[in-house]
């Protein structure tokens, strides 16, 4: 008698150039109401190895709420932002730019600094790229002085020192700025597991 068959994984393929046909219906760059007092923007650009803007990418953001919880792991509807899904999708514009509105994620455990996971899809990528956006303490945000700095985060600690800066967002007037470099001198750190 043969063992029960375990299915093998389906390989990844590129989203191709026409991804918006199937994916644009769920574009949701605003994870929270933009008028919320603790709403922040996360903006940036996606650039290829030559530094040219990537106008046909889709980014997906995945993060905990401000209390560090996920919808699948006991988020409290009383404290989570209304309609909170922890997930956002934003296509890049002609200049490679993107824009999310969200809240700074709280600590997901005792060790990790505030972060969001970012998936990058585009023509030319045969599978998604995954990086992390780290949110360093930001002046004027209540409680930010208690945030663990990215430099103390165990995931960041596993990254070659000269590249850790690519994972840390820069504070901006109304949030943070985070560029994704697919190559070049400032190539963003991308992860596997």
């Amino acid at each position: 008698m043969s063992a029960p068959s375990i299915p093998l994984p389906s390989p990844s393929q590129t989203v191709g150039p026409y991804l918006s046909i199937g994916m644009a219906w769920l574009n949701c760059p605003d994870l929270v109401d933009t008028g919320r007092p603790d709403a922040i923007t996360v903006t940036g650009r996606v650039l290829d190895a030559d530094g040219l803007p990537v106008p046909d990418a889709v980014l997906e953001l995945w993060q905990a709420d401000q209390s560090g919880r996920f919808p699948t792991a006991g988020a409290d509807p009383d404290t989570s932002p209304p309609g909170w899904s922890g997930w956002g999708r934003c296509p890049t514009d002609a200049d490679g730019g993107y824009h999310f509105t969200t809240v700074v994620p709280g600590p997901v455990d005792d060790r990790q600094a505030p972060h969001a996971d970012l998936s990058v899809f585009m023509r030319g990528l045969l599978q998604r790229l995954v990086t992390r956006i780290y949110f360093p303490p930001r002046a004027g945000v209540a409680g930010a002085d208690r945030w663990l700095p990215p430099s103390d985060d165990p995931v960041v600690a596993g990254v070659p020192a000269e590249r850790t800066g690519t994972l840390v967002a820069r504070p901006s007037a109304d949030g943070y700025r985070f560029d994704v470099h697919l190559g070049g001198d400032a190539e963003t750190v991308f992860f596997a597991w």
Partner: protein
Amino acid sequence: MTLTHGPQLQPDPPYRAPAYRSSERRAPSAPLVPLPLGPTERAGPLFGHQTITPADADLTRQHPGEPLGERINVSGRLLDDRGRGIAGQLIEIWQANAAGRYTHPVDQHRAPLDPNFTGAGRCLTGPDGSYRFVTIKPGAYPWRNHPNAWRPAHIHFSVFGRMFTERLVTQMYFPGDPLIEHDAIATSITDPAALARLVASFDWETTEEEWALGYRFDVVVGGHLATPVEGPA
């Protein structure tokens, strides 16, 4: 000593596939960095609060008239790598029309658009991970990757698993398509057995008499972006 992927753990194509020209300027150059999985990666988004209706899974009924082409039922299951169905998760599909043309401004292939076909569908998986779409068989179409390059007929699939690590976008191909072995995107998958898993099977059970042909296509998520393991040279 070389870095190898366990064929069962890492089914995916490399980022840099020289035959697929667009990968050259967009593939990362530095090695991927291992990410110890934490709470962020072990959770994943929930869907269902979005408005998804049965019509979204029938691409032949999204316009006043019927699209031209060969009507097909495409069904299967969304499974994890232990063979368990993943319930209530989102599957999005998109495709060209029967003439091989996408409803997208970038697509300038000299083939007709079909006013009765958009080519986008979505559904949530059932309790056993099952899904079903009604659509028309997409046509092959030319692209400029190399001289006389043609993509085999395919349907794009975007799926979410239970966890962030199980997110997958792939393409479904059709059995017997002579273009698959010449396609730079399909053959970027170096393991022929893995590529074969992206080819749907013709299915009598879901073929409806005097109505539509049936194809079955299971999507198995897991092992994506699994860290390469060191193996013998």
